[in-house]
């Protein structure tokens, strides 16, 4: 990216208008809160990643030689918990969503700025509890906490971890609530629902899941904690309870939660695909409603995790059928993204590369979901590495790719600096290769019958596991690359212009980085979503003259 060197009078933006730790820890500005989240989820990601590294090292050889079985069990449990509850669920909504939603709808902030800050603190407190649980010896129940193991048998810190998840749940509820109200009540004049960027639609759908599903996991861990302390038998068959009830309650939340993890990434991809090709999204309304459909149908399929659990065969059929129903909107999205490229103006910048990565890997991950939803086949692959590969394809190959793509794309807006494009492309490539090498062999291992959560495994699976471990080390390095250059660019990257991509959307009509209240004046929207325009007609909201206002390469403002 080429930028002009000319230094103008520095204009106050959200980063430099006040200084000091306190101004950050007590901020009510959604953009600063997004950065607080960015920092904290990154820490949790690397913590979760460190556990993953240890898992992969243990699995390098068939016998359990690196660590004790107890330790290994704690490793994958805490890996799952960290990654799911403390990284992936907040990742895109709380960072990119928080930063962008008010800007994209032309508002000054979220509807409840104080709740927003509170949600970060709640998240941190939840994280702290979980962290204490780890330091005090960890948990070994698997991230799914199945009873009666978790309630009556495990001797690890189930309650502390449960408390951490309980608390963090409220942070997610508050974020969702805030988004819903904001999107309903704070859209700029003229910004009708069908003019909203698809990013906002998908976050709206995500938020619905957050407020409808999260309370159930809260009450479920509450019941688990009480059961563990009082042993009254809610989940204990010896006393008349049913352990499978726990599985129903757990998955009632946790299946929809997988859509909390993927929908925001889908929103990011919609933005990337449209803006990196300067094309309106093909079938806008279908993509928008597909998000809602996924959110709604996502609540009807949880029983597909229980196909071998002794759940009724007939209930299994219902859940399988509904699982296929929810796959259709995902398919619609994939096809529409692809069609958007048709007659576009495609620019191979890093964000688009990540978007391509997402589409490809999500397709594979999603299609393997169809294997799992096929009842007779799931009987064989359930709780094998096939499942592990399925969800890593979607969550790591899909969502993290989406997250990184979004982070790169909006990085100029967030930090006011450009990242180094060459390094970024290199990083994306390393991640893509490392990823596939890590997780593709797991499909094979899974179908061959290697069960998951195994500390030691029979010899014949070793080759595949060695490949997987090798891939994981490439992947780990891959993740360090963006970490380093993004941090570097915050200080040394070239200054970003208002709209370095020639993209379209309200966030590109304000300065980079934006001022505290986002726009100098409330914009009035007279355009449709993704209505790309020639340079002369480019819309700029607010006065020009700051450093973020020079024309970009394409001569646009």
């Amino acid at each position, binding site marked *: 990216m080429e930028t002009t060197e000319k230094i103008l009078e520095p204009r106050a933006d959200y980063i430099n208008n006040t200084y000091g730790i306190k101004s950050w820890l007590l901020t009510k500005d959604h953009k600063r809160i997004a950065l607080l989240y960015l920092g904290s989820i990154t820490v949790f990601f690397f913590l979760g990643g460190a556990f993953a590294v240890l898992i992969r090292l243990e699995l390098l050889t068939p016998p*359990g030689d690196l660590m004790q*079985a107890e330790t290994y*069990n704690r490793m994958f449990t805490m890996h799952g918990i960290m990654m799911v509850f403390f990284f992936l669920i907040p990742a895109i909504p709380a960072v990119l969503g928080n930063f962008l939603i008010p800007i994209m709808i032309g508002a000054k902030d979220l509807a409840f700025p104080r709740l927003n800050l509170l949600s970060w603190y709640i998240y941190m407190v939840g994280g702290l509890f979980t962290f204490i649980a780890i330091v005090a010896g960890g948990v*070994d129940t698997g991230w*799914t906490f*199945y009873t009666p*193991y978790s309630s*009556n*048998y495990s001797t690890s810190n189930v309650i502390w971890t449960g408390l951490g998840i309980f608390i963090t749940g409220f942070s997610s509820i508050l974020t969702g609530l805030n988004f819903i109200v904001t999107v309903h009540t704070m859209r700029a004049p003229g910004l009708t629902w069908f003019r909203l960027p698809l990013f906002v639609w998908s976050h709206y759908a995500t938020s619905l899941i957050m407020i409808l599903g999260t309370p159930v996991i809260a009450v479920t861990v509450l019941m688990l904690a009480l059961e563990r302390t009082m042993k009254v038998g809610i989940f204990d*068959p*010896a006393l008349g309870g049913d*352990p*499978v009830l726990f599985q129903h309650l757990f998955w009632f939340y946790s299946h929809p939660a997988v859509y909390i993890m993927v929908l925001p990434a889908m929103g990011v991809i919609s933005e990337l695909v449209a803006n990196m*090709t*300067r*094309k*309106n999204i*093909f*079938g806008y309304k279908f993509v928008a409603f597909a998000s809602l459909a996924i959110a709604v149908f996502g609540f009807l399929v949880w029983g597909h995790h229980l*196909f*071998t*659990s*002794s759940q009724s*065969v007939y209930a*299994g059929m219902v859940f*399988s059928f509904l699982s*296929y129903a929810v*796959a*259709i909107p995902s398919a*619609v999205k994939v*096809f529409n993204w692809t069609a958007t*490229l*048709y007659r576009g*103006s*495609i*620019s191979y910048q890093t964000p688009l590369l990540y978007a391509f990565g997402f589409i490809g890997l999500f*397709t*594979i991950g999603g*299609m*393997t979901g*169809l*294997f799992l*939803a*096929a*009842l*007779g*086949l*799931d*009987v*064989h692959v*359930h709780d*094998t590495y096939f499942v592990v590969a399925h969800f890593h394809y979607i969550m790591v190959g899909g969502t993290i790719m989406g997250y990184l793509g979004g982070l790169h794309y909006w990085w100029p807006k967030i930090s006011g600096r450009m990242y180094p494009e060459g390094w970024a492309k290199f990083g994306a490539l390393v991640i893509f290769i490392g990823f596939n090498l890590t997780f593709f062999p797991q499909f094979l291992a899974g*179908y061959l*019958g290697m*069960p998951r*959560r*195994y500390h030691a*495994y029979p010899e014949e699976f070793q080759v595949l596991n060695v490949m997987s471990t090798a891939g994981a080390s490439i992947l780990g390095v891959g993740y360090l690359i963006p970490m380093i250059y993004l941090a570097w660019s915050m200080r040394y990257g070239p200054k970003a212009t208002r709209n370095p991509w020639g993209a379209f959307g309200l966030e590109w009509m304000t300065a980079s980085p934006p001022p505290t209240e986002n726009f100098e004046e409330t914009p009035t929207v007279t355009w449709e979503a993704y*209505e790309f325009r020639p340079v002369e007609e480019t819309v700029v909201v607010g006065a020009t003259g700051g450093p973020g206002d020079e024309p970009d*390469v394409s001569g646009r403002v």
Partner: protein
Amino acid sequence: MPEQASTVSGEVDALYLFLVALTVFFSLLIAGTILYFAVKYRRRTPNEIPKPVAGAMKLELLWSVIPFLISMFIFGWGASLYYKLYRPPAETLDVYVVGKQWMWKFQHLDGQREINELHVPVGRKIKLTMTTEDVIHSFFVPAFRVKMDVVPGRYTTVWFEATKPGRYHLFCAEYCGTSHSGMIGWIVVMDPTEYQTWLSGGAGEGSLASTGQKVFQDLACNTCHRSDAQGRGPNLEGLFGKQVQLADGTTVTVNEDYIRESIRNPRAKIHAGFQPIMPVFPDNLVTEEQLLQLIAYIRSIGPQQPGATTGAGNANRGTTSVSPPDAGRANPLAPSQPRGDQRPPQQ
């Protein structure tokens, strides 16, 4: 592809291969289209603004309906396979399984007991009735493509028919604590004659039912449950597979789960005309294994002829392979008999 060693392996693999092909097709379709567009419509000048393309209803319908139809096809296929996998067939050779942290315990009707190793004959439908002493486990034999969770407090069943002699992995697939990965074993599939020899090896204790009968006497069950009508409890002879009238007016079929409940928690369902006086036998009095022995015993004194039961046509499914107690060892595998609807000889 793991070894195919059961009658359903091939069917599961067929579905798998179909899905693999489908995945390859769609992945290539999408990746190919993306690459093609990406090259063809690459940005040529920095200021290029392509013309907007309007959506197309027809296309949207096309790519919703086709995937839907495909997925309904997969659904149907998967569901019928599932039904087959989880619905035990009529004539089976039964084995009782108890899981516990971290081992598998097997009891054959003929009295053999095994740990972490299960010997079965080739070409017979084997039905496992399973439970656990502690947490949930899952019985998984990759070569047979079967898996079923083993849940405390209830019996789950799974069946398979091995097609090839050999040793196959048995895994515990549901995470169950520290040595979950150590809860593994082998399924040894043998030729019928070898199996016969194996059967006549060990054992010694007599059949499972006769062990059950001993337990029945040791626990003084027979003080109440007598073979005449004088007992304080119902006569258990000929009971298995029948419908029982309960005190609250409903009826229930006597099966493994019902017997289990009657022993662990007798007051849950009261046989009409009897007092709720039967004591509870919790697992410190009757272990899961003994419970299964008792069931085998009660089954063995059940109706000898399937047709003789009063229950619905299928109420006695799975009951026919029982040999009467003390009748010497049954030979469930007379090789001369045709497979399928064969009935084990009742000596």
